[in-house]
């Protein structure tokens, strides 16, 4: 008779490579329940979710557009988590960046995009950094847990934005609680004609490359990773632990700020209180599913964008609520984490 025993040893390599596939399959099976309740067949739902968007050019372009902000927040979270710093505040940092970009975009009197856009990016990065500064300092100096502080500041930022947009910064033209429209020079060029894919996508790719290069090829990057993986040993080796955590936290905030810049400069052309439907939190999903690596983050961002675009398509064709996309990405996160554990066990035949 075949007797099997489960033991605590790393699973074979081929199995570990298959785990992401298992996670995706398991997620979709679980989510089928919702689809059936919505009155659609799981198969047609998955067709709409995964296949259909890839077949049409407009949908494909949409995927790129939707991937842009979450790739940036995903990269922001990746950098922070690499140092062992749990930055859940990407949402607030994104809004900070968006505000700064909108301010530059409306105040700077120039006709040249070559002057305007880089300045917007710089302003947005700095704004995101500043918003990340307080929790980072509290963590490094006073050992205050950064999860709660970054989370709370998200809410504070939303209030701040609302106060500004309903008050001194309200658009006099439309009267809506949004900032005045940014100048033409500030509007990000569209990359693919008749789509909404904007310059922000290039920014995201550039940031991805830079982050990858810094984390793997520079002294700073390896020191940050060392701190994240074994803080005591890093200290023993003479690495300035507090400084590296602080820098990682600030850079993380800056990158999240860039996501906000993209949304303002490339999508809305003004600052609004609904700039982000939770991109900051989606960034955590992107980073985690990407195993805290840059290539992983890129793949995750694209996949999640596909799923979200597919959810829109499913809602149109099959009358399945578009929130299916949100459910899938959250489920993917949890299922993904759980299936990772499978990689810690192997099955042995007992003779």
């Amino acid at each position, binding site marked *: 008779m075949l007797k099997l025993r489960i033991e605590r040893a790393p699973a074979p390599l081929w199995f570990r490579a298959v785990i992401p596939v298992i996670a995706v399959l398991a997620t979709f099976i679980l989510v089928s329940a919702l689809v059936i309740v919505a009155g659609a067949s799981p198969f047609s739902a998955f067709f709409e979710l995964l296949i259909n968007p890839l077949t049409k050019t407009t949908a494909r372009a949409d995927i790129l557009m939707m991937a842009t902000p979450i790739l940036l927040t995903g990269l922001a979270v990746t950098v922070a988590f690499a140092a062992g710093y749990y930055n859940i505040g990407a949402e607030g940092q994104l809004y900070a960046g968006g505000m700064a970009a909108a301010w530059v975009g409306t105040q700077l009197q120039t006709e040249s995009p070559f002057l305007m856009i880089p300045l917007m990016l710089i302003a947005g990065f700095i704004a995101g950094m500043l918003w990340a500064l307080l929790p980072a300092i509290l963590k490094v100096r006073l050992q205050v847990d950064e999860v709660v502080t970054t989370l709370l500041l998200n809410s504070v930022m939303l209030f701040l934005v609302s106060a500004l947009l309903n008050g001194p910064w309200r658009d006099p033209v439309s009267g809506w609680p949004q900032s005045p429209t940014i100048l033409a020079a500030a509007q990000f060029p569209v990359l693919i004609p008749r789509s909404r894919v904007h310059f922000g996508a290039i920014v995201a790719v550039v940031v991805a490359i830079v982050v990858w290069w810094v984390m793997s*090829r*520079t*002294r*700073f990057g*390896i*020191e940050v*990773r*060392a701190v994240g*993986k*074994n803080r*005591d*040993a*890093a*200290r*023993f*080796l*003479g*690495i*300035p632990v507090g400084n590296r955590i602080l820098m990682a936290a600030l850079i993380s905030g800056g990158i999240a700020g860039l996501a906000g810049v993209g949304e303002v400069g490339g999508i809305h052309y003004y600052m609004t209180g609904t700039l982000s439907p939770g991109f900051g939190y989606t960034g955590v999903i992107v980073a985690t599913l990407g195993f805290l690596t840059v290539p992983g983050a890129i793949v995750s961002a694209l996949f999640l964008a596909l799923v979200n675009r597919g959810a829109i398509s499913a809602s149109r064709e099959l009358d399945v609520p578009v929130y299916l996309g949100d459910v899938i990405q959250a489920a993917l996160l949890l299922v993904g984490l759980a299936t990772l554990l499978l990689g810690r066990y192997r099955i042995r035949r007992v003779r």
Partner: protein
Amino acid sequence: MSVLEMRGITKRFGALVANDQISFDIEAGEVHALLGENGAGKSTLMKILYGLYQPDEGEIFVNGQRVSLKSPADAIAHGIGFVSQHFALIPTFTVTENVLLGHEKQPILQHDAMRRQVVETAEKLRFNIDPDAIVGHLSVGQQQRVEILKALYRGCRVLILDEPTAVLTPQDTEKLFSILIELQRQGLSVVIITHKLNEVFTISQRVTVLRLGKVVGRALTANTSQTELSQMMVGRQTIPVTRNIDHHSQNEIKLNVQNLAMADRSGAPRLRGLSLNVRAGEVVGVAGVAGNGQSELVSILTGMGQPQSGSAQVSGKAMPFGKPAALSQLKVARIPEDRLKGVIGDLSVADNLMLEQVGQFTRAGHLNRKQIREYAERLIRDFQIKAKPDDPARTLSGGNIQKIILARSLAQNPEVVIAAQPTRGLDIGATEYVHKKLLEQKQRGAAVLLISEDLDEILALSDRVLVIFEGAIVGEFDASETDIDVLGALMTGAAAEKVKIHA
């Protein structure tokens, strides 16, 4: 009839035999001392008694009945209580709450009744305790008494104490002993695990000596002497000297440490005015039983801890405390006590080899991967590390991880080498290799400070042997003049005055 008897207990951990056919018994109303060096098997034996380990062979009898102790709950049910070196107390709870925990007897807590019981039990043992005191605010001595109260509350008849005075002040030690004597008067039995001879003679009636997992001696305390016991414990009569012992008294002092004082978090002093020096080309070994300040000394000398007072110099230059990077710059090679805190498992072997000197491999912030790889390959070759540069460090064996630590620090031609427990957990081959490398450094002219709980290692490598006891250096020997009896006596606190023996 003995209250408790262990017969033929054997326990193996892989290839290591921690307890080898040990038989041990305790009578009612006696204080029995279990004596031995580190690694002798005392703690293992007592953990078996407390149900934390299961013996591979042998039996345990309580009041003549054979019992099987599969967990601490079983042990407690049979009246066995255990006070370990690391208290299982909740610092934010009160004394009463800690005593109650897990044995509340009622779903709704009766605080007043409990408080009274705590105070009464303490009074019966002739000491006072505030039942509402927060345990975290108590001194170590008081916390220990709470642990004893816990055991009594659970109805123990045999109380096992593991190195109870290791963390106590003399006053607390006295109080503890008077409590133990009181327990004895009330008919309970006490097993005290210790390495301090004066304790054995102060309160025990019988003593069992363990060495390398076996019982090497039993005696009635009244009938034996300190000399006899320390001989049994340390067990060496002569030390074969197989290497050239040079005398270095004229060489330059490379490491000079004065008057280090350091207290732990609860304020108990762990280092009291410790001073030592190491000259170029010599190996100085610090011998001592674990818990006498070695860890604190190591943490200071590796840059991880800060003393409250004292100073140190390396090659004449002041040594800053708490700055590991500065130590690297002063050419101090550091081999930490805990390998896992010196190496980053998830990074590659190559990265671990170069990180301490990462600046040398960086140009304008950019890592020179080619240079790193070449360096790694060279060190792997020179130090015979069984790994490839890209292997994650955590996949290596203990011995190879230690080689990484050796390689990265010794390849820099250090002036001073601080080696803390360098062969802990390593097999014979790896141990020999480490010893070889340390001697090489000495030949090179470096000053090597070896801090180890393994007396054999110290005796085999050192030119000078220092003995650390209760946070200070209490003896210094030239290797050729080491009298093992005096050494053992110093390590166990038998000798009161500082001893210095020179050629």
